[in-house]
């Protein structure tokens, strides 16, 4: 075990733990936002730079501070390390910068985006962004494309976190999904729009932190905050069959995997509970599911926390606006 201090909170974690995962063991405000890291996907992380933190002391043996901010999702803790996240001005500036970069070319089309209300970029923008943009240039745009008949890709909204690429690589049999081009021309693509034809391809929707990959069977049907998420299961020959059904009245509007407060698919019985396309796209009848009961809503979203009222210009309470 090694001892590490994050924003003044001291904890002991196993050797080899990353700063981010150490912070998650404590929870709360000291946890840096993570847009690309996904603990269930090998090799993920390090890309978006939202999780940057300041290391004020490297370790007990070598207590020098690290000169640059480091990505907490891919930096392991050392015994005696002192980390500053929320308490560091440098982190605040750096993270505000990253947020601005991620939003620079973003279409800001939340009003018509299915992800609104459960979007990590929305949350990030609210916590670390500014009300106005300094980006005067023309935004980079792409046409939306179909990835098979069930998944829609809106590349305009993509933050190039690579999670879907790792998902396609690691849980589907044949990868035909990846990144083409480079720099600000980089885009997610299937090989010349070839459909990902695989039982598990729908999971790319669940790992996407933004509304770049959406479920065509649910598109424009409802806002997520009008729906009631219920834990449900069924006997499925392909996957664990443990999912969340999103209901309005007695109707199932969509099916997703069970996700924790960091947006990651839960581990059930020791395995990541990915769900198959049959459960996700083709099983919308209530009688095909055993509905267990309402799911605890993870109120990470700025919408479900009613944060937006704070931004009402008539309301003087602006403490949440940075």
């Amino acid at each position, binding site marked *: 075990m090694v001892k590490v201090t994050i924003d003044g909170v001291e904890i002991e974690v196993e050797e080899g733990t990353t700063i981010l995962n150490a912070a998650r063991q404590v929870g709360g405000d000291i946890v840096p936002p993570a847009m690309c890291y996904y603990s269930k996907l090998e090799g993920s992380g390090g*890309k978006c730079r939202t999780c940057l933190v300041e290391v004020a002391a490297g370790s007990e043996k070598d207590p020098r501070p690290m000169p640059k901010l480091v990505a907490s999702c891919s930096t392991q803790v050392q015994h005696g390390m002192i980390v500053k996240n929320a308490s560091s001005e440098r982190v605040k500036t750096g993270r505000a910068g990253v947020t601005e970069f991620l939003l620079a070319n973003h279409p800001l089309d939340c009003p018509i985006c299915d992800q609104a209300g459960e979007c990590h970029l929305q949350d990030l923008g609210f916590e670390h962004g500014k009300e106005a943009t300094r980006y005067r240039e023309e935004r980079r745009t792409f046409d939306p494309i179909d990835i098979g008949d069930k998944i829609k890709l809106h590349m305009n909204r993509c933050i190039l976190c690579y999670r879907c690429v790792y998902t396609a690589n690691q849980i589907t049999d044949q990868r035909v999904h990846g990144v083409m081009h480079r*720099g600000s021309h980089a885009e997610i693509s299937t090989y010349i729009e070839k459909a990902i034809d695989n039982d598990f391809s729908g999971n790319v929707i669940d790992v996407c932190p933004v509304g770049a990959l959406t479920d065509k069977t649910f598109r424009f049907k409802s806002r997520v905050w009008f729906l009631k998420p219920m834990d449900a299961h069924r006997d499925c020959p392909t996957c664990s069959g443990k999912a969340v059904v999103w209901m309005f009245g007695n109707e199932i509007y969509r099916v997703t995997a069970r996700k924790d407060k960091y947006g990651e698919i839960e581990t059930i019985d020791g395995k990541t509970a990915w769900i198959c396309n049959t459960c996700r796209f083709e099983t919308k009848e209530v009688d095909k599911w055993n509905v267990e009961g309402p799911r605890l809503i993870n109120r990470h979203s700025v919408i479900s926390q009613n944060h937006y009222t704070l931004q009402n210009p008539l309301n003087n309470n602006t403490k949440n606006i940075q």
Partner: protein
Amino acid sequence: MGRKLLLEHIDVPGIETFEVYRQKGGYRSVEKALKSMSPDEVVEEVKKSGLRGRGGAGFPTGMKWSFLAKPEGVPRYLLCNADESEPGTFKDRYLMQYLPHLLIEGMIVSSFALGTNLSYIYIRGEYLFVLEILEKAIAEAYANGFLGKNILGTGYDLDLRVSPGGGAYICGEETALIESLEGKRGNPRIKPPFPAVKGLWGCPTVVNNVESLATVVPIINMGADEYVKIGTEQSRGTKLISACGNLERPGVYEIDLGLSVEEFIYGDDWCRGIKNGKQLKALVPGGSSVPILPTHLITKTANGDTRFMSYESLSDGGFASGSMLGSGGFIAFDEDQCIVRNTWNFTRFYAHESCGQCSPCREGTAWMEKVLWRIENGEGTMEDIALLEDINKKIEGNTICPLGDAAAWPVASAIRHFREEFEWHIKHPQEAMSRNYGLLKGATV
């Protein structure tokens, strides 16, 4: 002309062939190292020589070699970085094109020192003609028993291969180079682990620049004790400089480190001054990513000391008033050149070459490019200058690999030293569109 350790025989007809190269004393260092030295002794010699990496960062080569992990039963690799894509840098191409055997010789000795049995030269896609030259030279080395099994009867085996990239600057970053060599998209890896522990195919790997590896040859031949007599305390030996821009005589030169910048620019043996009798306005001494220097900081440091061509002297004054030796891509700008346009041009390069993995570099470089383009074309505002400085700060240090820094430094330094030129473009949109700032105002001294 100064002393030549690397380019000594460059003018000998046929020096690219094994026969002539050998007649001129080529491959002596292989004989010396393999027959009379242990691998550790070679490493020690390179350490003692003070050789610093010639690829840009200037990291001590011997020290890098001694960090290589050596677990039992796991192969190790030496990779030669011949991706040379930094604007202004073309010394590696010159060396490989005319002296292919010098690189091969250096790689044999270095591979022996590191205990690798398979080494690669990763060469940029645009250098395909050089690839052919290298392959021919490698075939000759095999035929003469300097590569392959049981080299010179010493029991040491080494295979050497050349692998071309697809033409991407980012593949010069060592972990992107490794990814590319493995046949993947050339994205830099998240470090740690460092290549010395986990590199090519997950095995311990050393990546060195072409010139660094070639320099091992004279070091072994003359011995480190002799080698350290050349240059300055922190910059030993000789260095290839690719001089370009508005110089009377541009080209690749081998200098003793510690030569004065003034001598190098104006000396008869070197660049012979600025073309057409013009004034020198600015200098980028080490490839496009290092800070640009204005007239008064080129031949003298901020303290008024003479500026020398060495790691320490070029960086004297830090980023406020210094620059870096970098890769030796020496770009001179005369009084007619427009710094705004040049800064835009450099930034366009970095935006185009960013791999796009991490957000600060992907979005930041493309954003800076657009803002600079507006300023250059008379559509800028005064806030844009502050905006550029701010974007800069948010890229620098926050990216996966140093490409972000390389993109940020030229912009930061151009604004630091040539702010009035940026302001002029903003205040005179019409003229900025139709005329060149440099032509209009001359040198800003």
